[in-house]
């Protein structure tokens, strides 16, 4: 099924993916509804930005896709293969070869007692990408150059603590590139970095996308950076995907009250803080433990109506590619 990949072909499709975590003592177990009924696609050579507050299920979503944790319900199709049925249990080496993760914290994702060369050699050896040690060293240097770490020879011999945060994150990206993946899942890759070097990392992701056609799922809580590199944006709230579409459409024509709340909260130097009207929504994110039926946003929503407490609305399409899960827009179908 791994035909010639061209633009606009779905590389990943997720249908109704759900994850519940069990907590509590044995006879009184409760379920944390971490991700509920998530469906989306990622196209070849595109960046999908998952935006949401902490606890909204973004990280769980990509950990499910990476198959680090088992899925409760739902299907994952990777390159049109139903991956959960084709490879029950642990993900195969072939799958891990195609799907890679980058973590948030480059200070803990690299092992302090090993050199950079060691970090980059591991995947190359494990996935049998090289045949001898001279080739290995050459490949390590090429990888470092691909993420703009120069001089590669010098960087390769260093230890993680000798590099800055931005350099370390580049090493982490180089490590994920080692196996020539098709899809990279990036979990808030810039949030732990100094502000002045964040753009460098985002531009690197952009470059890998356009020059090598690698697809990304980019997780962030920052709508501005999602807009900057995301082709598509999906907004998550309390485990649910509430709105999605082309990033410019989401930024300019968002309809879900939560998306609009998020947008109004992003600092915009163009307007003063005091002059802005109140957000119209207060309160806190609801608990994910055995939540009641209905939309998770009811407690904060300015547009709440009776339907909202009864059931979670289905998707309704606002315009081609732009969908929302909100009862307020359900009748426009």
């Amino acid at each position, binding site marked *: 099924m791994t035909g010639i990949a061209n633009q606009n072909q779905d590389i990943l499709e997720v249908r109704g993916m759900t994850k519940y975590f069990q907590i509590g003592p044995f006879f009184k177990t409760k379920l944390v509804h971490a991700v509920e009924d998530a469906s989306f696609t990622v196209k070849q050579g595109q960046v999908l930005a998952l935006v949401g507050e902490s606890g909204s299920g973004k990280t769980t979503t990509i950990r499910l896709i990476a198959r680090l944790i088992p899925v409760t319900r739902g299907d994952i199709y990777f390159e049109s293969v139903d991956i959960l049925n084709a490879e029950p249990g642990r993900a195969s080496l072939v799958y891990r070869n195609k799907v890679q993760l980058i973590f948030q914290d480059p200070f803990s994702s690299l092992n302090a007692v090993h050199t950079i060369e060691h970090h980059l050699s591991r995947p190359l050896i494990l996935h049998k990408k090289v045949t001898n040690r001279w080739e290995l060293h050459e490949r390590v240097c090429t990888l470092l150059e691909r993420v703009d770490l120069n001089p590669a020879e010098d960087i390769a011999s260093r230890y993680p603590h000798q590099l800055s945060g931005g350099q370390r994150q580049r090493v982490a990206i180089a490590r994920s590139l080692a196996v020539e993946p098709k899809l990279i899942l990036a979990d808030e890759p810039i949030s732990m970095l*100094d*502000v002045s*070097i*964040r*753009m460098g990392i985002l*531009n690197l992701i952009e470059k890998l996308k356009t020059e090598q056609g690698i697809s990304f799922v980019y997780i962030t809580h920052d709508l501005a950076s999602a807009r*900057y590199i995301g082709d598509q944006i999906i907004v998550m709230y309390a485990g649910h995907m509430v709105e999605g579409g082309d990033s410019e459409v989401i930024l300019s024509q968002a309809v879900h009250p939560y998306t609009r709340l998020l947008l109004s909260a992003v600092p915009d130097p163009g307007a003063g803080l005091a002059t802005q009207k109140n957000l119209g929504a207060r309160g806190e994110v609801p608990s994910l433990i055995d939540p009641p039926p209905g939309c998770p946003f009811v407690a904060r929503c300015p547009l709440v109506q009776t339907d909202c407490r009864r059931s979670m609305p289905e998707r309704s399409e606002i315009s081609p590619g732009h969908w929302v899960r909100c009862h307020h827009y359900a009748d426009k179908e």
Partner: protein
Amino acid sequence: MNPPFNKPLLDIHELKVVYLTARGPVKAVDGVSLSIRPGEIVGLAGESGSGKSTIAHAILRVLHPPALITGGQAFFNDRDILEMSEQELEHFRWKNISIVFQSAMNALNPVMRVRDQLLDIMLQHGFTKAAANERAVQLFNLVGIEPKRLDAYPHQLSGGMRQRAVIAIALALDPPLMILDEPTTALDVVVQKDILQQIAVLREKLGFSILFITHDLSLLVEFSMSIAIMYAGEIVERAMARELFDNPLHPYTVGLMNSFPSISGKLQKLSGIPGSPPDLLSPPTGCRFHPRCPKVMPVCAQLAPVEQLISKDHQVACHLYGGRS
């Protein structure tokens, strides 16, 4: 609302702080001058390691070895904080300057009820128990938490509520100056906006000054009146917030502005700043920004620029604008 003129409330002059490390002294703050007038919101922006939090800790005299204040003065109403004895400090701290730290979870004691932590500071400063309890209820109303949550332990509160509780503690003695050290970095944007709006409202009502420390320049432009930009232990540019946003002069400030994608307007390619912040054990010679500067000149590596007044309330330390040592 107090008009932000007249005499400075806090006047920091040539403050120098050094961290003694095994590999040598690190000049975390190197000759910083900054003044805050009554009722003013001053923003201090910089990357991690630029020395902005160290300034806050130095003003409160809560720096402990290996950090050493090696020079300068910090006048608060004509009294030099850096000269005060421990006893004087006990009366001075919190009554005159309070601070809200980045992580409320670390600022609150997890095994004490929030009420006891609020009362602690007031009883220390001569409140009676009854008066302190009354004030605690008043403070919680002020910051927008139900007073019945006073008897909660910190873990029973959400992140936003914890930060509000910390703000209530900071307001307890009605100090004329409050330092906010990245108060909302650990919070979600919606909560962040909520809390900053609340602080802005409280400031209008109570008239205190704010020193707002953050790395998020777009937040600062929105929230503060004047802004100072720090790089590697020095202030490189300062101006009124709008002026700085519309007309940044120092290449570092321009680079910082270029590091925040916008949510509105045309999407444009941003470059950030190449390279990494310097190692302060051996900072670059001359201007500390010169190895990363896109407009570097031969003089930059040799001479440290001094701050030049460009226009009213706009100062910059850069050779591009004729600064000579």
